[in-house]
């Protein structure tokens, strides 16, 4: 077995957890992933297996029934899972972000109410900022909550909810203009609401509709949906953290750990693409020798392995920084940017090594080729990452001239 993308300094617990996940991925995910993906089928058996294993509670504190593991452990688990099938890591990613937002910003009552059920996977999380007219430009959202006695009434349309249909708890960002002083910054007029709902599509609770799955190029199996609020009535207790006006900052905090997570996915996907490429290159013979012995192909393999290794180490660094309690937006942005770009490169190289067969749906690389672009866009596009990185650089290296 290969020795790429190793992680120094792991505890026995971390190593055992990762070995268990890797075994699960090799036996239960890789053999069925491509078929399920082609059918756009939700990987229920895999999700059930991960639930039993305890993946859904990995980072939730022990006092709420989870394991209280670090972001690093979580990221390494995600990397292993994405090596099998990126969509499966998508199932747990939004769950994890919502759990993280609850852990960091929820009231004690909200934590007690949701976290123990999230730890077992009984409640599964999704979150939503994007709307049909805006994604990266979060401040442009138009969905709104208006107070009505002790309640709030929500109206608006959300877009790109990963796990929109299969989740049972959605954290939604909306404007609450009536709750803050006139003239406040738009960032202080946003509030995160927690919406509990049954699984499924259609009008799942009065005033809340999940219209159906969006048909996508890749990242299939996991349901990506819209969400329509039409007079949805929620109580003041459903405001994350109990206080309106903090939603933007709560979401940004969640997305920051989500970025490490997306970087980890890119690492896993790139590793798989490398494995497939290096294997095929030794099987396929042209001009009397395995193509791996042609310099053009061997150089591709060298580039791929170097990128796999670099992305992994960058992702580890970003996760460890967050675990140490320090701000990691710079590192998370860099890790997400580098890992997703490298992932695209490695997948492309592996695809080229496969030649014509790579274009056939029988070969796994065809699936990876359609999945990799999602990582360039999701959880903040590459260009948004560059904006974040540059902004931080100009703070840190402010000219004294």
């Amino acid at each position, binding site marked *: *077995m290969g020795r790429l993308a190793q992680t120094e300094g792991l505890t*026995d*617990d971390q190593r*055992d*957890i990762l070995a*268990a996940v890797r*075994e*699960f991925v090799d036996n239960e995910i890789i053999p069925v992933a491509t078929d399920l993906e082609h059918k756009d089928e939700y990987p229920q058996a895999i999700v059930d*297996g991960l639930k*039993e*294993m*305890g*993946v859904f*509670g*990995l980072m939730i504190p022990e006092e709420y029934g989870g*394991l209280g*593991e670090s972001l690093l452990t979580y990221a390494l688990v995600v990397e292993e899972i994405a090596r099998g099938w990126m969509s499966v890591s998508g199932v747990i990613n939004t769950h994890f972000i919502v759990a993280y937002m609850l852990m960091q910003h929820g009231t004690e009552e909200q934590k007690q109410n949701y976290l123990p059920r999230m730890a077992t996977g009984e409640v599964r999380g999704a979150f939503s900022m994007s709307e049909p007219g805006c994604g990266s430009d979060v401040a442009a959202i138009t969905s709104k909550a208006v107070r009505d006695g002790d309640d709030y009434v929500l109206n608006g349309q959300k877009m790109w909810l990963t796990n929109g249909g299969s989740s049972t708890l959605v954290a939604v960002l909306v404007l609450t203009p009536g709750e803050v002083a006139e003239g406040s910054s738009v960032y202080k007029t946003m509030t995160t609401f927690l919406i509990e709902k049954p699984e499924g599509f259609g009008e799942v609770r009065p005033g809340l509709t999940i219209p159906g799955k969006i048909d996508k190029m890749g990242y299939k199996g996991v349901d990506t949906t819209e969400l329509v609020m039409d007079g949805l009535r929620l109580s003041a207790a459903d405001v994350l953290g109990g206080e309106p006006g903090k939603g933007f900052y709560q979401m940004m905090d969640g997305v920051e750990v989500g970025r490490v997570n997306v970087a980890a996915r890119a690492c896993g996907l790139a590793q798989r693409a490398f494995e497939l490429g290096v294997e095929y290159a030794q099987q396929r013979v042209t001009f009397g020798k395995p193509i791996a012995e042609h310099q053009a192909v061997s150089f591709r393999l060298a580039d791929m392995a170097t990128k796999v290794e670099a992305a992994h180490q960058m992702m580890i660094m970003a996760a460890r920084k967050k675990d140490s309690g320090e701000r990691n937006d710079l590192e998370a942005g860099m890790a997400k940017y580098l890992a997703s770009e490298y992932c695209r490169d490695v997948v492309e190289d592996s695809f080229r090594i496969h030649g014509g067969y790579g274009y056939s749906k029988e070969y796994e690389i065809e699936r990876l080729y359609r999945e990799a672009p999602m990582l360039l866009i999701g959880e903040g596009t590459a260009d948004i990452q560059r904006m974040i990185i540059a902004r931080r650089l100009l703070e840190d290296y402010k000219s004294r001239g």
Partner: protein
Amino acid sequence: MKIAVCVKQVPDTWAEKALKAADSTLDRDAADGVMNELDEYAVEEALKLTEAHGGEVVVVTMGPERAGETVRKALSMGADSGVHLVDETLHGSDALATSYALAEVLKDRGFDLVMFGSESTDARMSVVPAMVAERLGIAQLTFAQKVEVSGPTVTIQRATETGYDTVEAQTPAVVSVVEKINEPRYPSFKGIMAAKKKPVETLSVSDAGLDAARLGLSAAWSQVEDFAARPPKAAGTIVVDEGDGGAKLAGFLAEQKFI
């Protein structure tokens, strides 16, 4: 019900295996070590039996320090405690010595069942379960594809080439299992963490009261005089059928002593 499961750490199934030049024994450091696959089925079956009938599962291994990983894997699946026989003297032990050592460790501990995978993927002899049963003087129920326990009676379906035989014995008994028997569980994360806190008894040869002269390479009943790497695959012979293809094929097979 008290069940012992004997497990062995073996080189990863897909790894290139090598012998050491110095003493012609398996180079265990050359590949990752994993729990022998069939032993996972034995652990799973023992856990199922104690889940249904109550009791405890003790995992027993003999092997170098690193074999402790295999004990921990079984504990993370749900076994209650472990026994690890580890000693330089054991290095190079053959099946007879292994069965002697295991039987000595197992006896007097009050096990109702002693379970094994039916063979290991490295040595592939399938004799240790039978030898241990013989040394303990208890019944052996081998190659089980199904196990049922009712009071002191244990009944198995013994897999055969054509189907199965039903075999029954009174406890205590040795049971070895084949892969048809179940689907081993994955350790849960909670199981992995709990495994660290479970007791593992580490025994040396003298702790276990074993006679060192009966153990190790020098006591083995067979000796490896020499070994060589498997030769690379040679190109096959192509038989062109010019009306006499059948005869040519038969001739080739006869020459190779297949017929």
